[in-house]
Structures are given as structure tokens and as C-alpha cells.
């Protein structure tokens, strides 16, 4: 019995080490953001908010933030607007070629972003359209659509078809049924899908670097540009802001959804 316990504690220790390994660099970014020194590195020499103040005075960074927020919001809206009906079709109907179409719509997950980036840019070039905000937006919708589909489908499976059929048999129109029955039951998943789409869009850099121009830089693209001249405390500060923003969102959303929805699905 003693041997089993020691094996289990080895697993525990290893897991703990993986956690430390995974979070040490992220914690370092946040700590170094408060280092008043000119070079964004150890050792820490005091504690100051000066890099954050400097960030808030940098108009190109503020513009990038604005671009990222607008882009993420529109991406979330469009991806759910087209993803929710598709998820309904997959869960509520039988039709020919269902598996094939499901795989097709989920394909962006398995296609490397670098290829998505090149392909869409090439297509736009062939159409002789300039790079624009719209290009980044449609690109992000394609990137995030599979995640919205997966999240909404998973939830929809757990909503009994009988509720909808009952409403229909009592004289509700299909649209009324969706508005009064399906949508309220589905709302947590739609919200989760939007949040996911927003965060992916907000964070994406691999494909976005192909699509963005100087005028519509997002925050990650801006960070990439700043990295050209080595890591600076300003980058750490910007990273810290991004980390706090994108980490607190899912935690908050998870807390809210756990409070309000104790329905099926994980």
C-alpha cells in the first residue's frame, strides 16, 4: 500500500511542476510590468505603475485596443449569427451529406492558420481589393465559427426536442417557438460561443498578421511590431493588461453561467 501512495504523490508533484512551468513565464510578465527599470528584465528594482501610465498615453496602442475591441465584438456577433442556425440544422434535422458538411464547417480548426492567412489574402488580392478592416473581420469569423458551432451543438443536444414540438403543436409559429422556447434555453451556450469568438479574435496573431494593415492593427499585431526592438517593460505592461483582460473574462463568465444555469452539458 505504501508504494501506491508514493506513486500517487509523484503524480501530484509532477502535476504541480507542470502548473509552475506553465505559469512562471506568465507571472513573470505581470511582475516585470511593474519594474521601473529601463530594461524589462530581472532584477526588480522597486515597484511602479509608470509603464502603464506610459501605455495609456500612447495613442497607437489605444487605437489598437479600440480596433481589437470592435473587431472582437463584430466577430462574436457574426460568428454566432451564422453559427447558431447551422448548429440547429445539425442537431434538429436529418439530411444527406450531414457528416461531410459538419466536417467542412469544422475544418478551420484543423487547417493551419498560416495557410488560412495566405489563402484569404491571396483571394482578396485576386479580387483586387485592398486589405481592410472587413478582411480581418471575415477572416476572424471563419476562424471562430467552428468553436461557436461546437459549443452551441453540445448544448443543443441537451435540449429536448419535445419542448419545441409542444410549442408548435399548441399553435406557435416556428419563429415564435425559437424566440420563446429554444432561444432562452440556448442563451448560455450562445453567450459562451460569443465570448469564445471574442477572445479568439482578440488574441489571434498568426493569421491576423497576414491581414492587418498599419491602420487596423490589433493589440497582438501591435505587440509583434514592438517586439522588433527586443522586449521592453512597455511590452510587459501591455501583456499584463491583456492577460488580466482575457483571463478574467472566462472566469467571470464561468461564474455567472454556473450561477444561473445548472442545465445539461458540461
Amino acid at each position, binding site marked *: 500500500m505504501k508504494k*501506491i501512495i508514493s*506513486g500517487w504523490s509523484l*503524480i501530484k508533484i*509532477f*502535476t504541480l511542476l*507542470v*502548473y509552475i*512551468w*506553465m*505559469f512562471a*513565464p*506568465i507571472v*513573470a510578465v505581470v511582475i*516585470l510590468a511593474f519594474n521601473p527599470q529601463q530594461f524589462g*528584465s*530581472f532584477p526588480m528594482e522597486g515597484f511602479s505603475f509608470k509603464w502603464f501610465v506610459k501605455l495609456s498615453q500612447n495613442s497607437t496602442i489605444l487605437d489598437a485596443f479600440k480596433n481589437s475591441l470592435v473587431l472582437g465584438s463584430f466577430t462574436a456577433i457574426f460568428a454566432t449569427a*451564422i453559427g447558431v*442556425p*447551422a448548429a440547429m*440544422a*445539425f442537431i434538429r434535422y436529418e*439530411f444527406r451529406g450531414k457528416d461531410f*458538411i459538419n*466536417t*467542412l*464547417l*469544422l*475544418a478551420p*480548426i*484543423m*487547417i*493551419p*492558420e*498560416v*495557410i*488560412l492567412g*495566405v*489563402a484569404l489574402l*491571396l483571394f482578396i*488580392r*485576386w479580387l483586387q481589393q485592398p486589405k481592410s478592416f472587413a478582411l480581418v473581420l*471575415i*477572416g476572424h*469569423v*471563419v476562424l471562430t465559427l467552428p468553436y461557436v458551432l*461546437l*459549443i452551441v451543438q*453540445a448544448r443543443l443536444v441537451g435540449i429536448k426536442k419535445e419542448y419545441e414540438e409542444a410549442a408548435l403543436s399548441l399553435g406557435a409559429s416556428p419563429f415564435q417557438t425559437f424566440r420563446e422556447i429554444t432561444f432562452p434555453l440556448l442563451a448560455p451556450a450562445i453567450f459562451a460561443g460569443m465570448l469564445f469568438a471574442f477572445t479568439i479574435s*482578440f*488574441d*489571434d496573431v*498568426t493569421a491576423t498578421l*497576414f491581414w492587418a494593415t498599419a491602420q487596423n492593427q490589433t493589440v*497582438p499585431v501591435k*505587440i509583434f511590431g514592438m517586439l522588433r526592438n527586443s522586449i521592453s517593460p512597455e*511590452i510587459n505592461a501591455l*501583456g499584463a493588461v491583456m492577460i488580466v483582460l*482575457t*483571463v478574467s473574462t472566462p472566469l467571470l463568465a*464561468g461564474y455567472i453561467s454556473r450561477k444561473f444555469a445548472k442545465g445539461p452539458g458540461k
Partner: protein
Amino acid sequence: MKNKSWKPWILLSPSLAAVFFLLVIPVCFVIVYSFWLRAPSGADIPAFQFGNYAKFFADFFYPSILLTTIRVALETVFLCLIMGYIPAYFFYKTESKFKPFLMIIVMLPFWISFIIRTLSWINILGDSGLINHVLMKIGFIQEPLAMLYNEGAVIMGLLQYLLPFMILNIYVSLDGIDKSLAEAAKSLGCTEWQAFREVTMPLSLPGVSAGCLLVFVLTCGTYLPPMILGGPGNEMIANLIFKRVIGTLDWPFGSAISAILLILLATIVYTYNRYMGIGQIFKTLSNE
């Protein structure tokens, strides 16, 4: 239901249109462009010739980058597997009430921008990073160790990006295994280790293979870690594409390299799907 067979297509049409026009057609364009020529002026000339592919395989330079990519991807898959399986097994077995909390924490990096996670390693591995700072402070070394700008640093960045995917895939597979199976094996005289090796581990293989495939594919398509954490010799195929397309605007050759990467990955995914089924990956991702 039969008389309403057009209904699902109406619901599907916006998504289908988006994926068709923004993914399928553009990818076809990449294939078409890979046969085109590039004029010395930089203009693209429609053609059908294999010059771009011949250029790629003409000498050892480009194929060696392809091989580096595959090697780095395999190393990343291997390390991810070890670093991912044990925590996933811990989540499966643990009865701690903190389990949901611990699982949310392990998924948190997934929400942090890839570029921040990548550059964060500079603070750890750099000349004045955490490791060198601590080692020099305790007098273990006099000069900083050169830990950045090599393959090890690139793999660190890749691992941190991909480990949550691996852990999640393995955990979902483990989570579906009835714990009483291993208990039954033990009551029949197996040791803990034997029960794991003979019962639990084989049943978790679908998740393991799905995780490995995902990590491999995602590694092959990324250029940021080699660009930020690697040196000149650590370029991968995606870096080549990025440089050709964004740097020198050589669309036909950039397209040919993209097509080669696409064909490589498509072959792997197709083979995988044939024998394992791709559904596992989608099933796992929907759990997030």
C-alpha cells in the same frame, strides 16, 4: 420531416457560404497560384508549370526546413504527451474538491494571447531572465547561460501553447472510462501499475492519439515561436511562407510552399481519420 428537407439547408446556408467563399475557394487559389510564374518585375503570370515545386526540391535548403519542422513537431508531440498525460491522469483520479478549479486554471493559458505566451519565455530564458538571474545570484554561474534563440527555446514556447490541448484531449478520453474496470482488475490480483497499463491506458488511447494529431498539425502551422524564440537555424516551414508572402511578396513560390504543407498535413489527417476517426478531436473541443 421529408417534405421539409429544404429547411436545414436554409439554416446552413450562411455558414456554408462563409466557409465556401472564405476558405474553400481561397485554398483552391493557393493551389492554382502555386503553378504560376513570377515575373522579374514582381508581377504574377498565370501559367501551369511545376517550377515552384522544382525550386523547393532543387537543393537541400528547403527540404531541410521541412524536415526540421517535422522533427520539431515530433519532439513537441512527445514532450506534450509526457507533460500532458500525468496531469490529465491526476484530474481523472483525484477526489479533491478543488478539481473544477484546477481544471479551469490549466485551461487559462488557452485564453491568453499566443504572442504574449511566446514572448513571456524571454523573461525566463533570456540573458537577464529569471533562470540566469537566480543562478548568478547564488553564484552558480558567472556568465549568463545562452538559453534563448535555439531549438529548446522554440519547443518551450510551442509546449506552452499546445499543452492545454493535449491535457484536455487525454482527460476527456480518461473521463469516459469506468473507474470500476481498473478496480475489477485490481481485485483480480493486478497491481495498481498493471491495472493502469492493461486497462486504463489502452482505453485512453483515442484521446492520446487525438491530442498528438492536434499538437502535430498546430506545430507545423505556426511561425511565431521560431521567429521570437528561435535563432536563424530554427526556422520552420510556416516561417518560410510568412517570409515569402509578407516579406518578398513572392506569391507563386509562397503558394507552392503552402500547398506542400497543406498536402503533408492533409495526408496525415486523412490517414488518421481513416483509422481513428476525427470526431474525437471535435468532441473534446466542444467540452471546453
